[in-house]
């Protein structure tokens, strides 16, 4: 091995000393380091400002939450030591664990928690539901605070332990009080890691070191709950946009772990005995329709599109091999999740072009141009959008594909203008299970009429059914109301579910603890090597 490397070096340059060419000299910083390829480039270090998954994952590295879901989806106390509630669920008292500190050695107090919760309720859908329920917070002492609700709200802990979208991270009061109009530009948390801002190279890598001030729970880690004490002194998130590079880097041991493997490389990586490929979390592909403009302002036209969608083809176009995709998923709320239900899906289970064409004719479609935004820089979005174009063409619609990078899609989709005047009709996106699995956490089902969500769906029935679901008294009632909500969603078609797939991660076999990863998140404190 050494010989070949030496030869290569000699062939290329003449003479270089042997020692400097060893791989050890290349990679290792002091201490135990985990080098992983992150799924995206970390651009914004404020998880309370954007729902981008990479910023959320950053939040879990640096910050901690009051409650967290365990691996079975149950909320568990995290920063909270103990809590109590009144019989009518309106009065709550929370006590923080003793000794919690931010990484600058200052203590975590009730004031920090309350300021963070206020910031959170102003941004999150669950949080806003609590505001609508008349929530108020009050500090009792540095470790104790109370919460008062005007109306009973049975999902308080689910809300506080919300794992994705905007999780309720606890920031120092000073940061939490900053205006929410622009991202917070520093990070100071009480979580398991400290962000090394001086080593951050946007577009390339983000570096974290173990937070010596972090006080772990005594329970074993489970999901996002329990101890988050890291076995690594240092974690490096690399961003390698080129699939070949990231896969080759893993094969050669230059990195330990790839958070999200490009689907086409799953097979070659599986064939490599030094590498373990696993399934990390469920995702759904979304086809988002603009409800303001023809043709999809008409419910029949939306149903026509839904009838024509072949989920398997969408997932194949996104690159997912047969064993990572479902042939058909019958729910908006993630197949296999606690809210999995087939209610209302029966009529749409099989792609039916004849039915689609009939519905389209009923809608009075007059050959208007359908503008589809096609992202070019994200391979799976590109495949999905082009498949959508082909699907609409196949039922006789007049399709105009407009290509742009994803960043431009996010700007363009906010425009309410007519498609011919700079607006749009269709774009595609994906969501992880926690951002799809209930009428409130699902970003495209949660907003009520008058929302600012791109697509601007509005269905009064759905709004009523959602509120009813939130106010359900018990599990049975909640299940019935969920079924009713989904059945109506299949009729009203606020957006179209284009199928469910699993993300794949890959790691060197010397990485331990991979089986404990949960929710499609890189919970690096589960890992060791």
């Amino acid at each position: 091995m050494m010989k070949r490397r030496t030869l290569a070096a000699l062939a290329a340059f003449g003479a270089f000393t042997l020692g400097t060419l060893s791989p050890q000299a290349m990679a290792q910083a002091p201490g135990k380091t985990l080098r992983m390829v992150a799924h995206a480039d970390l651009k914004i270090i404020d998880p309370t400002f954007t729902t981008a998954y990479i910023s959320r994952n950053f939040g879990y590295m640096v910050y901690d939450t009051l409650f967290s879901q365990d691996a079975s989806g149950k909320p568990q106390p995290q920063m909270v030591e103990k809590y109590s509630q009144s019989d009518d669920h309106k009065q709550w008292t929370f006590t923080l664990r003793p000794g919690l500190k931010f990484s600058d050695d200052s203590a975590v107090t009730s004031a920090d928690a309350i300021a963070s919760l206020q910031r959170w309720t102003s941004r999150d859908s669950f949080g806003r539901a609590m505001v609508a329920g008349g929530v108020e917070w009050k500090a009792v002492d540095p470790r104790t605070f109370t919460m008062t609700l005007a109306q009973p709200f049975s999902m308080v802990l689910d809300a506080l332990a919300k794992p994705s979208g905007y999780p309720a991270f606890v920031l120092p009061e000073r940061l939490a009080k900053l205006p929410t109009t622009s991202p917070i530009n520093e990070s100071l948390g009480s979580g398991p890691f400290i962000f090394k801002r001086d080593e951050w190279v946007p577009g390339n890598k983000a570096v974290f070191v173990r937070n010596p001030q972090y006080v772990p729970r005594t329970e074993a880690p489970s999901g996002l709950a329990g101890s988050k004490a890291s076995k690594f002194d240092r974690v490096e998130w690399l961003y390698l946009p080129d699939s070949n590079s990231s896969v080759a880097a893993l094969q050669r041991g230059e990195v330990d772990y790839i958070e999200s493997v490009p689907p086409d490389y799953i097979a070659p990586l599986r064939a490599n005995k030094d590498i373990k490929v696993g399934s990390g979390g469920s995702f759904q592909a979304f086809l988002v329709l603009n409800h303001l403009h023809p043709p999809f302002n008409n419910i029949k036209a939306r149903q026509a599109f839904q009838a024509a969608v072949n989920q398997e083809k969408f997932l194949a176009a996104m690159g997912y091999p047969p064993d990572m995709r479902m042939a058909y998923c019958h729910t908006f709320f993630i197949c296999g999740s606690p809210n999995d239900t087939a209610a209302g899906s029966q009529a749409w289970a099989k792609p039916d072009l004849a039915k689609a064409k009939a519905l389209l004719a009923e809608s009075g479609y007059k050959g208007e141009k359908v503008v589809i935004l096609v992202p070019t820089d994200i391979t799976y979005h590109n495949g999905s959008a082009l498949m959508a174009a082909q699907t609409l063409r196949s039922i006789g619609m007049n399709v105009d594909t407009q290509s742009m990078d994803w960043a431009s899609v996010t700007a363009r989709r906010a425009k309410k203008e007519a498609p011919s005047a700079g607006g749009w009709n269709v774009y595609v996106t994906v969501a992880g299970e926690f951002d799809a699995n209930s009428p409130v956490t699902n970003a495209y089902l949660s907003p009520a009429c008058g929302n600012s969500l791109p697509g601007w769906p509005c269905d009064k029935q759905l709004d009523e059914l959602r509120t009813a679901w939130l106010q359900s008294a018990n599990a049975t009632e909640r299940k019935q109301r969920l079924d009713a909500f989904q059945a109506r969603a299949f009729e009203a078609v606020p957006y179209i579910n284009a199928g469910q797939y699993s993300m794949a991660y890959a790691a060197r076999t010397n990485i331990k603890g991979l089986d404990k990863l949960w929710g499609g998140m890189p919970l690096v404190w589960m890992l060791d090597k």
Partner: protein
Amino acid sequence: MGYILRRLVATLPVMAVVAIVVFLLIHLSPGDPAALIAGDLATEEDIRNLRETLGLNQPIWQQFMIWIGKLATGDLGTSIFTQVPVTTLLGQRIEPTLSIALVTMLITVVLAIPLGTLAAYRAGSLIDRLVMIFAVLAFSVPAFLVGYLLIYGFAIRLPWFPVQGYVGFSEGAGPWLRSIVLPCVNLALVYIALITRMTRATVLEVLHEDYIRTARAKGLGVLSVLLHALRNAAVPIATTVGMGIALLIGGVVVTETVFAIPGAGRLVVDSVQRHDYPVIQSVLLLSAGVYVIINLLIDLSYRLFDPRIQY
């Protein structure tokens, strides 16, 4: 001295044109950076507030004046996306780019000038033809195809070099060099072709001049004749090397993308996709500055090569 000053002053209008072009260009962009930063679920109000905070609502000329004023104090602005000062971003990115550019230059000068001289001296021979065929091929085959062929051959099939990434010089000269060999070879091909062709052409011309014929007739050795000829061909060759800087900087953009090297070139490609104005502006401005300064230096050094030139 007066000449140097005059040449320096002459670069000012060029840089002014560059500044205006760069600024106007970027500010006509349709993408809304505020909407991009605010993310998926931002409300229209969020976006409006952010636009205000970032100063994107002011009239263009006002933004231009503010920008120029800041430039004068060395402030390149702050990345809209990461909120990191552009000087910091560039600082992180400059080492890989400089490493690749300098090593490529070195390879090129060391290989191309002797190769071109040899081809000229043996004009018409097999070597000459091979050199010329190489040159036209290097101009024609897209650099990114060559890059992937190099990766496929010398990083995947024969795992001699890393597939991607950059290792800092501070981590040792060996690893550093290994990490940039393939990108430099990739980048050098076009540049070598350019300089070789130019060297060959000028040396060929010089070789036909009377004084060289005389020197040859007097029985001067081959090497001294060639050195003599090279000395006289130095000015056009140096000019080509200077003009080629633009080609080199352009090539770095593609090469850094192919080899996933976190340099200034990839920074600009990433920034374009995010409409991160301050970063794009700074990179364009700086690369133009480098081009102007290097060509100024080359211009001024002519006297070194050719004492006959008087200013």
